[in-house]
């Protein structure tokens, strides 16, 4: 039986290669969560024993944009003769020099939402990884006479917007439109990190297979989409993926989980936490609201995934033959314990006054007035620096 495949999509801030498996990353959080269910997951078992983990990273694109702007600024002389050019140079130098700080405080949100070319490059990066992985899974399944595995996505914060925009484009784009042209003129694309040389060599197989295909887009075919601190209602750049139908009327994505924390200012400002089921009465949409405060940055990816109400849905959907209904019910019962609805973990023994101060700070971010874009930037900065001090 093939392992199901899960894609992790990061949010704001800097994410180096390997971010998902870093100690504060989502894979580590889920590995730790697995230890809560020893009857299901024997000691020593890791998430990768049950799922194929695919890390999606796109923040290097933002780095490149900043680096190129800095290059431009560096080519200009100090006294240009045009006053505003000097100002631009100073700005470029400042943002270039403080790139990490800028991205950490939500600069990547500005780049994604403010520059359509940047947003498209990000979406294409995400889709190139997903489309290639889906293709490779079909290839492997056919070679081993197995059924196709399920594909799940766990996205966080800005990543919830990026993934919905990207999947919308993947599912609605006519990516097969040039089949005939390619048949006449084989593709000249260079081998990429995502496709092997043998993939290119067997290109004609695709052309033969495509002849039986009807003229319609190919669905993205995501089984379960977990939107952790959903930002899409405010930030999305494309159409609405979560209600997107396939050409024959099915939902492109089988299950959507809208997961938000009671106090998370990011999803509250962006409208994710107040979303009403856009799929009507169907059970394929689930909203999960978490309440625990185990670290000051309640917005963090790992903090969300540690909650049994969240990881039980992930395990149940993607490791389902192993994580049975009994384990799921056990996790849901655990999620109702006080520890997961109040202060806990490292903050369990925080003094009452400090707890109240933290709560007040979290609440104050959300009730401020102003443009959502400005509030969001301030909230991200506050979560990264001021909260709890």
């Amino acid at each position, binding site marked *: 039986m093939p392992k199901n495949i899960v894609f992790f999509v990061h949010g704001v801030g800097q994410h180096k290669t390997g971010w998902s498996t870093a100690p504060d990353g989502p894979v580590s959080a889920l590995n730790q969560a697995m230890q809560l269910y020893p009857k299901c997951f024997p000691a020593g078992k890791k998430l990768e024993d049950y799922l194929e983990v695919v890390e999606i990273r796109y923040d290097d694109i933002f780095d490149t944009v900043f680096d190129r702007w800095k290059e431009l600024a560096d080519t200009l002389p100090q006294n240009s003769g045009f006053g505003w050019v000097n100002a631009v140079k100073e700005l470029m130098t400042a943002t270039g020099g403080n790139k990490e700080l800028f991205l950490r405080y939500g600069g990547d949100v500005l780049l994604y939402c403010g520059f359509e070319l940047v947003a498209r490059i990000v979406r294409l990066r995400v889709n190139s990884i997903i489309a290639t992985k889906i293709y490779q899974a079909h290839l492997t399944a056919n070679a081993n006479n197995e059924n196709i595995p399920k594909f799940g996505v766990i996205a966080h914060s800005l990543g919830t917007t990026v993934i919905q925009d990207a999947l919308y484009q993947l599912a609605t784009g006519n990516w097969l439109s040039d089949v005939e042209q390619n048949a006449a003129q084989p593709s000249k694309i260079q081998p990429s990190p995502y496709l092997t040389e043998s993939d290119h060599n067997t290109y004609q197989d695709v052309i033969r297979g495509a002849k039986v295909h009807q003229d319609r887009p190919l669905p993205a075919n995501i089984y379960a989409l977990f939107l952790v601190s959903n930002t899409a209602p405010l930030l999305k750049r494309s159409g609405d993926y979560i209600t997107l139908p396939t050409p024959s009327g099915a939902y492109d994505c089988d299950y959507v989980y809208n997961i938000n924390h009671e106090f998370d200012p990011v999803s509250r400002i962006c409208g994710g936490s107040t979303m009403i089921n856009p799929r009507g009465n169907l*059970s394929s949409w689930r909203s999960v609201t978490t309440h625990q405060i185990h670290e000051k940055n309640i917005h963090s990816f790992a903090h969300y995934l540690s909650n049994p109400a969240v990881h039980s849905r992930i395990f149940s959907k993607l490791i389902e033959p192993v994580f049975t209904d009994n384990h799921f019910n056990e996790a849901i019962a655990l999620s109702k314990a006080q520890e997961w609805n109040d202060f806990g973990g490292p903050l369990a023994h925080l003094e009452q006054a400090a707890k109240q101060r933290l709560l007040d700070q979290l609440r104050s971010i959300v009730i401020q007035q102003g443009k959502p874009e400005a509030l969001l930037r301030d909230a991200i900065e506050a979560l990264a620096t001021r909260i709890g001090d």
Partner: protein
Amino acid sequence: MRTTISYLMLSFGILSNACAATFQDGQIKACDIDFEVPSTLQPAAILNATAADIGKGHFVRVYEYIAHTFEITLSDSERKTKDIDTLISNILKAQALEPKYFDVQHDAEVGREVFFLNNQTEEFSYSCKTLPSNFPKMAAVSLMTQWVSNQRDSGLYKERALNVVKQSIAHEALLKNGLAMWPWELWLNGKRLGPKDFDPLFLTQWIFMRPTAGIEINTRNRATANFDVSVGIEPIGFVHYSDQTYKDWWGASFLATSTTQAGIGVGGLLRWNNYVLGMTRHESNTVGVRSSNFLFIGIELYDYANKQRGEMTE
């Protein structure tokens, strides 16, 4: 030939599914229970009967066979139930449906097996506590239909992946290799994109209010040449790339300068990759200073020329 072998291997019972309802060793496994499936609905029987049609891409005939074989295992009253009627109807039109229509999912939140999860207008599900007697047969034909549909679509995923990757590589190449864009140029050129990410990326990039560093030389009087690095502004212009690697380009822009002592200069420039060469006209308002034409040499070209001159001197 390879295809036929794979189907025969399947028929020995290694078909499996990663969802709750699985087809293993000729049995349907759901809700932690193994259910027997009639021999005519076993993967081996269906595949042996339809291998030739699958191999030729005659999928409609395969779907008809599955639906017909399922129907003859049913009594008249069973056939008339809404769930089974919907399932058979969907199998018959499976050529127009996605494979996911035939998934049999398990929903732990409600402890039920769910058919046709994605149909927006209806889904039907069965509690694990009260699975109907026909459930194993329904799950068997549904999963087999899904498997056949996946065979039908499999090749297309490669085509899609190739095109997405090709498009992604082109866009990243523009960002990394192309003429760097100032923030307002990045914004402006982004506005030219089509609504779909598969729309081709432009090969002509607009230039707008672009600061450009260079050297200005008075062509009439070299003694007054300004060899300090100065900045010109390209109010509007373009560069055209030779291909989607975005490594080579040529272009032209209007040019305005103000850094010589001869007042504002207006003219144009030509660009070939990073090399810029332009001409400006400075109309003098100062008594005794004549209007002049200035040669504008981009900083990269100036550096290149100096390097070449140095090498020749050596």
